[in-house]
């Protein structure tokens, strides 16, 4: 009996202690480790965010998960139990983000997933995926392939989850766009040679090739293809669009085409493009802070997460104070119902069935011309 009273008193005390005035956003990113080259961009974006969310003061707690999913899971639980986070954001690796999303669903707090992770069930119930789904991105490539009359497509990608994701996206797009995938070759980022895969690709004589790599790692197959005298178009995915890819690939990657968020080339977008103002503004601020030429898609995902929260928080504040389960549930509902939130990457319209909310306005095709990424003409309308 006595025990029960003490427990009740303790619980009441705890509840009072957790109902705080500020909103706590718990963030875990791979700022070190193999994913660091992306994680640093995500972290930088937090410096450009405002001090409030929907008018309420906000505190960002950013932890480093060293690009390790186990650490990401630990960080997520720590952010929930010690920092009393109201919402989680992270991480820059798909496996890490999935771990965090599971922790968020357990704790019943909303989570903004900043990589194109594929989630389902109760985990997706609490999670909102900020970046464009791989299929949405690759549909830009499929459209272009169809427009150029391509039928047979060769595929070479990473022998990991990313390679699988891009391949599956192409596979599901193949039918509606009348394409046939003739190879599924795989390589690793650390391979010293892709000669075998490239010979195989060329022996099937495809009309175009799609590379499922990322960043500098995507240059390896293209360089090998060009060295072997391959002349037709080579398409990449959004993970490849950065300056390092061109630096490593040099002349061999001239002409490479890839889909990306409008954030990468905001200056070249037509004025009518819905995100032009937001994208251009963010790119300018980012480059003013971190140096010319530092623009990238990744920082935009973190910033779009912030914009989504900023749009959803006012509705949630009406239902409860930050730190309470009522607020968490209300924030989740509010995020699920955001309409026409213009981010740096696209326009978000979520509903219970769609926890991403982006449409074809969230991708453009870019091409390497004269050693830099430029908008493919006639695209981005």
């Amino acid at each position, binding site marked *: 009996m006595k025990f029960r009273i003490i427990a009740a008193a303790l619980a009441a005390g705890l509840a009072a202690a957790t109902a705080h005035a500020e909103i706590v956003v718990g963030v875990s990113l791979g700022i070190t480790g193999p994913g*660091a*080259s992306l994680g640093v961009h995500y972290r930088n974006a937090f410096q450009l965010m405002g001090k409030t969310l929907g008018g309420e003061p906000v505190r960002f707690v950013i932890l480093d998960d060293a690009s390790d999913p186990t650490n990401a899971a630990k960080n997520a639980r720590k952010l929930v139990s010690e920092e009393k986070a109201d919402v989680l954001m992270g991480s820059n690796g798909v496996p890490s983000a999935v771990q965090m999303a599971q922790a968020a669903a357990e704790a019943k707090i909303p989570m903004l997933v900043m990589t194109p992770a594929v989630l389902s069930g109760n985990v997706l119930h609490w999670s909102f995926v900020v970046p464009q789904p791989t299929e949405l991105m690759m549909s830009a490539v499929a459209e272009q392939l169809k427009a150029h009359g391509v039928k047979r497509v060769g595929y070479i990608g990473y022998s990991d989850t990313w390679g699988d994701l891009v391949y599956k996206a192409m596979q599901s797009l193949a039918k509606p766009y009348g394409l046939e995938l003739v190879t599924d070759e*795989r390589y690793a980022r*650390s391979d*010293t*040679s892709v000669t075998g895969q490239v010979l195989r690709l060329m022996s099937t004589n495809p009309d175009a090739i799609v590379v499922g790599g990322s960043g500098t*790692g995507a240059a390896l197959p293209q360089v090998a293809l060009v060295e072997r005298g391959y002349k037709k178009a080579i398409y990449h995915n959004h993970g490849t669009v950065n300056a390092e890819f061109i630096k490593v690939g040099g002349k061999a990657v001239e002409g490479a085409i890839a889909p990306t968020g409008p954030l990468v080339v905001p200056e070249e977008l037509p004025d009518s493009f819905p995100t032009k103002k937001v994208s251009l503004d963010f790119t300018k601020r980012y480059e003013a802070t971190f140096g010319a030429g530092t623009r990238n898609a990744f920082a935009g995902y973190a910033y779009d997460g912030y914009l989504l929260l900023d749009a959803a928080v006012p509705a949630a504040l009406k239902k409860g104070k930050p730190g309470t389960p009522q607020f968490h549930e209300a924030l989740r509902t509010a995020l699920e119902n955001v309409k026409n939130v213009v981010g740096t990457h696209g326009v978000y319209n979520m509903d219970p069935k769609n926890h991403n909310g982006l449409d074809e306005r969230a991708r453009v095709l870019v091409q390497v011309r004269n050693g830099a990424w430029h908008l493919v003409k006639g695209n981005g309308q």
Partner: protein
Amino acid sequence: MTADIVLWLAQDGVTNGAIYALLALALLLVFSVTRVIFVPQGEFISYAALSLSLLQAGQVPGVVYVLIGGGFLAALFEAGVALRDKALGRLPLVFLGYIVVPCAMAALAWWAAPRKLDLGWQVLIVLGLIVPLGPIVYRVAYQPLAKASILVLFIASMAVHYVLQGLGLVFFGGEGLRSTAFSDASFRLGVLQMSAQSLLVVLASVVVMAALWLFFGRSIYGKALRATAINRVGARLVGIRTGLAGGLSLLLAAFIGALSGILISPITTIYYDTGFLIGLKGFVGAILGGMASYPLAVVGALVLGLLEAYASFWSSAFKETIVFAIIIPPLVWLSLRSRPLEEDEEEAE
């Protein structure tokens, strides 16, 4: 699969196999002299390849800090021992070897980086930066444990690997680099288009192997290393300093690692962690050769390179699985053949 594809793949396999063979030799050398399974071998590859790319871009490679820091640490260790032994006469030599030489190499890199010297000089500077790391690593990480069991030394190796890889990420960043080719020339050989670069890889490997053979067969230091490898106690009895032998073997390993890195840096994109996997394949090559014979290790590494090339053509998704799975039969064979008392004998030594 047509005949020219077979030839293309063979050429590719031999080029990679030549690198694996060099690394297999280095691993075998270090193992037989010091009983260390030298996991950090791969880091030298990454360090050298990335340093060369950075020098070509006119930047000072961050490895200079690793070199200076490691040198100071090693000097501290050595000075501590000298003080304990009351042998202060050693100090000037320690100072020269572990502080002056690394600082001089670092200064040279600083001076040379913005000047974008000829490729030959850049290669020499990279070798000068990476090779001294071998003895430094031995002095700091392995010499204090020289009498420990193979397992303890292996754990120390893993630690050194993680430390060096972590430093690599700090100083080189997460993105990969690729250096410009030594030569863009290529030769027609029947249906094959042979690039000068891959020819250079094979040639350099053969030259290094021949040089190693001469070194072990003819020179006094080479013979001392062999003696240490065959019998440590006996070698000590006839006056060979086993600590010196350890440092020398790591010096050679670092040289081979750095050379491999320099050779492959124009062929592929190198990341801070690429070297580990390449080194691991060299290790598989050495195991295919029974981890005892140098010629067999070379053959094992070449077989591995060829297998990798053909596997990447036939079933690229399973390439890595195939390459690493072939390590299992030799391991089973080795463990069936070995006497179970081996480890105890070593500890009693």
